[in-house]
């Protein structure tokens, strides 16, 4: 290790020491926290499953209360008529407000019914002087029989029988947190259908500037369109499968046109302190990379992503202790190249890569309220990369310009070490995030020079809500979701600014590992963004990105700046 790397270690350790997690309440129940670690799809909410289960049980209880003598009467052959409720394209949408009003009325009615029932029960128990019972009419018995029949029928539908499961046994629907789901009655088996869709328009009003500027046409595009299946089996085995439909990253020369898998993993999460996961998933090193792409305050991740891996094949142990104030991940991976893209990541040498990340939210439960949303940590990875280039082409935020690439005959030649201190701070409307990465890697020109190269990058971002909403690392939930008919319900509006910088080792160019005439040694970008969160699921984003490039030598003749103006409509379901 060279001195700067050691220096980084010391800084990280000091960093960690300054914010020691408080030691009380260790290993208690799973807390409700904003975790730093997020998948693209948040984990299935077990609490919500349990709530659903309770609802079913309640219905069942009420049913049993109503019909105690069900065996005597045969089930009447009453067919359940399903009114025409086909999903039709042409169905005019209902006004959500009116529906809400209706739902409120129904709930009110149900409450009144319950109160009334209780009152009635109390009266009966205290043996209040009741009016004399009316003489049973001759039709009473028939009435009872009819009622019993109806109760039996309802039970058949809701509770089910031995070989015919009732509504309560398998339920499906939609909830805000889980989206569309199917589940078994107890919630031990759970399946979610999720998806993300990003329809973009990208333009380059200022174009590219320099001695040899490129031409960037404006274009409509789909940046991401994926659907995933996410579930739980036997309660504690979680899985996620996300196929890529090919058009996701059309710019990638490596994966274009080839179907592949973005995520595919199995996780055992019986104990919140130690989840075990195997498969393909995000290498848990970077704070920004771990934030779901749909939750970013910007359209794309910063330049820092060029130095850290995206997804990789491997195994990981992760968990949270101290009621969520401390979380960690420890994984072993094939060592996918640092990349813009999610690669298949098959290992080219036997050397594997070890990743460790630590993240703490020390003031989550104690300390000043304005520090509650503060988190700090660091990630590091150490591995051996051989016979393969350790880097993919590095691109600007807009994915439209490659500003750095190793020449074809450069391969990894041994150790690769990354340090990545990171922090965020969310308080009321404001959010801050920062990360720094330093990569040290042995590279070699085949039959030529070898060197240990050190690249570094950092980014700092700030966001602020113009509306009265709460900033978060996770998904923003607007206080007043957009509704056409409700005045003042304009969703959430957020302004965001980011600065990012990446600097490549000058030796890369002096040793001829990259073309100094074409590729930049340093890129600096400033991003300004406006986010309009219509609701929990839909947002419209506008980003302006200005990137400046600096060459390693005077021979550099490629672009000196790029201006990109991008718009996005994003839907998550």
């Amino acid at each position, binding site marked *: 290790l060279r001195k700067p790397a050691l220096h980084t270690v010391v800084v990280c350790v000091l960093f960690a020491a300054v914010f020691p997690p408080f030691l009380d309440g260790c290993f208690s129940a799973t807390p409700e926290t904003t975790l730093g670690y997020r998948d693209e799809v948040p984990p299935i909410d077990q609490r919500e499953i349990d709530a659903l289960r309770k609802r079913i049980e309640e219905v069942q209880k009420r049913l049993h209360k109503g019909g105690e003598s069900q065996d005597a009467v045969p089930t009447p052959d009453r067919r359940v008529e399903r009114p025409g409720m086909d999903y039709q394209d042409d169905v005019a949408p209902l006004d959500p407000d009116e529906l809400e009003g209706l739902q409120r009325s129904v709930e009110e009615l149900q409450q009144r019914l319950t109160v009334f029932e209780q009152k009635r029960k109390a009266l009966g128990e205290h043996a209040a002087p009741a009016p004399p019972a009316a003489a049973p009419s001759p039709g009473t018995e028939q009435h009872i029989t009819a009622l019993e029949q109806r109760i039996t029928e309802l039970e058949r539908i809701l509770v089910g029988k031995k070989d015919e499961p009732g509504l309560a046994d398998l339920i499906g629907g939609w909830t805000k947190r889980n989206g569309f789901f199917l589940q078994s009655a107890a919630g031990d088996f759970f399946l979610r259908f999720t998806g993300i869709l990003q329809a973009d328009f990208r333009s380059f009003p200022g174009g590219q500037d320099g001695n040899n500027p490129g031409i960037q046409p404006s274009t409509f595009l789909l940046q991401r369109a994926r659907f995933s299946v996410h579930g739980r089996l036997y309660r504690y085995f979680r899985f996620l499968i996300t196929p890529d*439909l090919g058009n996701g990253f059309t710019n990638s020369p490596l994966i274009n046109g080839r179907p592949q898998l973005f995520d595919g993993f199995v996780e055992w999460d019986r104990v919140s302190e130690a989840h075990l996961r195997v498969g393909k998933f995000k290498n848990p090193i970077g704070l920004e990379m771990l934030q779901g792409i749909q939750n970013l305050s910007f359209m794309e991740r910063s330049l820092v992503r060029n130095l850290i891996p995206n997804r990789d094949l491997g195994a990981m142990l992760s968990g949270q202790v101290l009621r969520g104030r401390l979380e960690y991940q420890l994984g072993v991976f094939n060592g996918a190249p640092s990349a813009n893209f999610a690669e298949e990541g098959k290992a080219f040498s036997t050397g594997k890569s070890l990743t460790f990340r630590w993240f703490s939210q020390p003031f989550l439960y104690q300390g000043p309220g304005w520090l509650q949303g503060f988190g700090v940590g660091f990630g590091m990875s150490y591995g051996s990369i051989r016979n393969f280039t350790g880097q993919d082409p590095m691109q600007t935020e807009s994915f439209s310009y490659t500003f750095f690439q190793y020449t074809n005959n450069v391969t990894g030649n041994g150790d690769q070490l990354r340090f990545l201190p990171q922090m965020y701070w969310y308080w009321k409307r404001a959010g801050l995030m920062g990360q720094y990465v330093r990569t040290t890697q042995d590279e070699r020109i085949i039959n030529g020079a070898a060197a240990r190269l050190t690249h570094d990058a950092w980014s700092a971002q700030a966001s602020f809500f113009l509306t009265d909403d709460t900033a978060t690392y996770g998904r923003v939930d607007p206080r007043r979701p957009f509704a056409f008919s409700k005045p003042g319900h304009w969703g959430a509006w957020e302004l965001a600014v980011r600065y990012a910088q990446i600097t490549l080792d000058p030796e890369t160019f002096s040793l001829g590992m990259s073309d100094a005439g074409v590729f930049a040694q340093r890129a600096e970008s400033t991003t300004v963004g406006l986010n309009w969160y219509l609701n929990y699921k839909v947002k419209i984003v506008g980003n302006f990105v200005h990137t400046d490039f600096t060459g390693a030598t005077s021979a550099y003749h490629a672009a000196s700046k790029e201006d990109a103006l991008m718009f996005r409509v994003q839907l998550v379901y």
Partner: protein
Amino acid sequence: MPLGVIQCSGLIRMLVFAGLVCAAGVSAAFAADVDDPLQSSEDSGSPTVEDLDRQLEDLKRRLDAIQSAPGPAPKMQSPEAIAPPKLRELKRRMNVLESLALGTSHTRGLVERGPGWSSKSGFFLQSNDGNFFLSLRGYVQADYTAHPGKQTGLEPGSFPDTFNARRMRIFNSGRIFRQIRFEIAGDFAPHNNNLYNAFVEWDYFNWARLRVGEFKPGVNIEMTQSAVDLHFIERSLVQNLAPRRDYGVQLSGRFFRHMFRYELGAFNGSPVGPNNNPQLSFSGDKTLAARLMLTPFATSGPAAFRELDFGFAFTNGIIRNQTGQQGMLTQAQDRIVFQYKANVTGDGVQSLFLPFMRWYWGRFGMMSVFARRIEREKNLSTGASAALHFEAWEAQASFLLTDDQASFSWVDPKKPFKFSKPGYWGAIELAARYSELRVDSTAFALDMADITNNPAKTKALSVGLNWYLDHNVKMQMHWEHNDFDGAGPRYTAAGTLDSLIYRVTLVF
């Protein structure tokens, strides 16, 4: 500069883009009071707000009655002696439970709110209020193609008979917050693009829906027909000239119920052709697409013409630095009939004019489309540039042998196929189509395409039999005959091509 071309100038481009978005927003704001979206839900069969209201009022009345009634009856010794008030209460509670579970004539019960299957939506999941809806659908098309007549001509080719998985698609489509529609569709067939449709649509007003993403531009009526609903194995030769799918934004809507329909969109302008994938723009220019469709007798007039539509579509854009066409194919997609040479690129305005009509009445259905495309292309080797004219048209007719209703979409048999029920044979349909494609011979004169291999004119005749077993399975047997004419004496390729294609389609 022709009307409708979006020029490269950044400002204008931005204005047009912003204008499209604003137009939707402004027009939407104006019409908030004029067109009440709740009114048109009568024809859907789903409960209206008024119905729900009535139901609630009913519930309220009943509750009030309970509350004003005297206290409960004392506990009875035997069930036979239950007093009528107790019985009434039981009944009331029963009614509430029943309406919750089963619904009433006005509202949906739990039974209908859960996951399930319906013929229109396939397997679905939804929220309790129905505002969030996900439909999980898919289809598979398994083909067998034979070439009994082979290919004749000076240079006869041999086409091997083959099994093929033509399309294997999975759809996730639905609504969130009731008014936002989405669809993501993937194709897993070996030769196809992986991503099909992927779009988001704001669908609040019938007369103005705004859609962004990847989808079929509203241009070619035949293209708008789903691949599973085609009365033939594949679309006609016209699809060689019309856009297929593209990235872009589109405003669409309808007025006077279905009488007027329109689409207006801006797209990247991906190359047209039967097999193309949407692409990123190669130049800053975009393509405008517009379509107007009229159904004059949708609500009144002779019943025979209820489903008679006609209209026209128009696209105009500039294509540079990329070829405007991908290889044109025969209907069965087994032979390329026209292909630009690699050194030919778009060099300016491309426009398409496409009038069409369709008519479905009783057992009978017909459709006809004409397309004329003008595109400026440049041969980079010689520097020659020319506006090339392409023309194609098709006319098709179908007739149901069984007593079923002809339709633009899937024919839903009155008597779905059932082994055990005599007379239940599904629906059987005969279909015939004639189609022609003419290529500009200037393309050969300027060496933009190979004159020896590419015919100047292709004529295709299709005759087929469709057997709709039920709502989900269709079997087809079609015969395709192609005649090829060359542009000049140097044309040496085949004169005819015959294909016999069997297909099984399963939709879920």
